[in-house]
């Protein structure tokens, strides 16, 4: 498994880079974050909050190296500092409360978008020259559309005007959170519009990417041979052409995840969805640097984990990566 080991090594390196960036940004950007905050609040800050913030950033009189070590050890204990917005709640608690919503929403939406987008891409390459080509201009448009604008448009049409789906919150006010069918139904009902937004906005890249690779694959000799053997076109399309075209597509899918998560974060804000995006907005509004940085770190790590999962899928689908080490 040399392939996986190499990838894992890279992700650990990247995680370290994210952690270190997080440490360096407040120190390298012009101005002391704490002074900046005090100035923006016109001195209207709880001294305890200032102290907590200094501690969160590990800002002290010690030299940079010792600050760095202190920061790493805090991080190893899951200590991300205290949030200014929700003072004195720990940033890690705020994130832990909102992260499941985001992972659920973005995870499901991304899976749907990947499956539908990839299948559409395969079909469009296969049926080149039919009405399906009409999807191309639409995909080109969706490729460049801001997520939060799709969210605004959907919320306006289906939420406010038609009233088919709720346009805010993650579950109804009338249901008690718990493991009940009623609660689950309410959650799914409320997730429809945000999920459709993410699917629509992220699907275009999958369609275009898959179509382009697939079109190239269709010219390969083994596809021609499969046809010459008289295999059914369904078999040729999925088992011969798509099976191979999907490999480069997984890589580009993994790399697009960061972009999808970024867009989803903004989508949550439009729908007041109680995930990490709405927390990020609160952090931005209140100059809550510990919260913003904690969220950056958690999102980065989540994207790295998702990338590793994509690598695992790659290994399952591409036998060559498994033979490499032997």
């Amino acid at each position, binding site marked *: 498994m040399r392939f996986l080991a190499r990838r894992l090594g890279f992700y650990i*390196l990247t995680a370290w880079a994210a952690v270190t960036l997080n440490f360096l*940004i407040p120190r390298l950007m012009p101005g002391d974050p704490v002074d900046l905050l005090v100035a923006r609040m016109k001195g209207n800050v709880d001294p305890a909050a200032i102290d907590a913030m200094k501690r969160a950033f590990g800002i002290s009189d010690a030299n940079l190296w010792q600050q760095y070590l202190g920061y790493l050890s805090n991080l190893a204990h899951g200590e991300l500092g205290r949030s200014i917005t929700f003072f004195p709640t720990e940033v890690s608690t705020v994130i832990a409360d909102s992260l499941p919503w985001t992972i659920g929403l973005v995870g499901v939406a991304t899976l749907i978008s990947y499956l539908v987008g990839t299948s559409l891409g395969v079909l469009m390459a296969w049926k080149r020259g039919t009405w399906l080509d009409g999807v191309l201009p639409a995909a080109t448009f969706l490729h460049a559309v*801001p997520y939060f604008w799709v969210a605004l448009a959907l919320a*306006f049409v289906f939420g406010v005007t038609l009233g088919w789906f709720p346009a805010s919150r993650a579950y109804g006010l009338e249901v008690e959170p718990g493991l009940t069918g009623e609660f689950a139904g309410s959650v799914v009902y409320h997730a429809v519009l945000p999920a459709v937004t993410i699917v629509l906005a992220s699907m275009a890249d999958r369609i275009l990417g898959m179509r382009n690779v697939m079109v190239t694959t269709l010219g390969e000799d083994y596809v021609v041979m499969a046809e010459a053997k008289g295999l059914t076109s369904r078999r040729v399309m999925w088992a011969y052409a798509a099976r191979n075209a999907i490999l480069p597509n997984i890589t580009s899918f993994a790399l697009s995840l960061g972009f999808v998560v970024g867009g989803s974060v903004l989508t949550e804000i439009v729908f007041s969805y109680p995930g990490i995006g709405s927390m990020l907005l609160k952090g931005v509004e209140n100059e809550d640097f510990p919260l913003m940085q904690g969220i950056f770190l958690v999102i980065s790590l989540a994207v790295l984990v998702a990338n590793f999962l994509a690598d695992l899928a790659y290994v399952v689908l591409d036998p060559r990566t498994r033979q490499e080490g032997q």
Partner: protein
Amino acid sequence: MKIKIGAGILVFFTLMALLGPLLIGADPAATSSDGLQGPSAEHWLGTTQTGQDILVQIVYGARISMGVGLLSAVIATILAVAVGLVGGYFGGAIDETLSVLTNIFLVLPALPLIIVLAGYLPQRGVASVAVVIAVTGWAWGARVLRAQTLSVRRRDFVEAAKASGERPFRIVFFEILPVLLPVIATSFLATVVGAILAEAGLSFLGLADLSTVSWGTMLYFAQTGQALLIGAWWWFIPPGLCIALVGTGLALVNFGIDELANPRLRTIKAPRKRKAEATA
């Protein structure tokens, strides 16, 4: 065909950004008593809560939105060219280091990083926002350019330049760079799309210069002004549509160039037996 449509869209918006403000001459921030009016003969695209004319804002906003996108993409492309070409040409430890750096920036989610960086900016002017976006947006171009450089560096003209004793710096930037210009151009266009979207996202969060009018800040004020609940669709539909159209124009030009390079990607009707069989 694609290139023509795409270029048409881009020319339209460029002219709007350059000449529009001169033709209109109104102040995009000027308020009036006609708040929240739908499109009418007087205000073609309606007005905001404080009675600002939306069409005027769109025209002025084009300057900031497209300007930040272009500036940021220029910076990002310079970075991408430097990292991609130097890594691809020199190979070895330099290439290893630069590749790892590129891949790290490729995997890290750009928007949250931009948000954290922008949060710390003491002043969020157009230039500083463009730099912050560029810092996170160069990696894709660098990766593509590195791969292309690898395939070019063994060609005869590079060997000839080496043999004639040209310095490595000259070989990379005066021999190899011109050959890669088409690749640089497509990567530049894609970077502009990303930068315009990033600027919009940043403004939407209120993290850009809110005193200047851009398509992103228009959406920010529409969101904070509850345009959605009031039903003022004319407030938030136009700016997003403009962003998407500019992006579509850039993408069409890019895809058009791809199709020139790889004719199979074209959509023209090619009668093939497979099609008949599949639909049967």
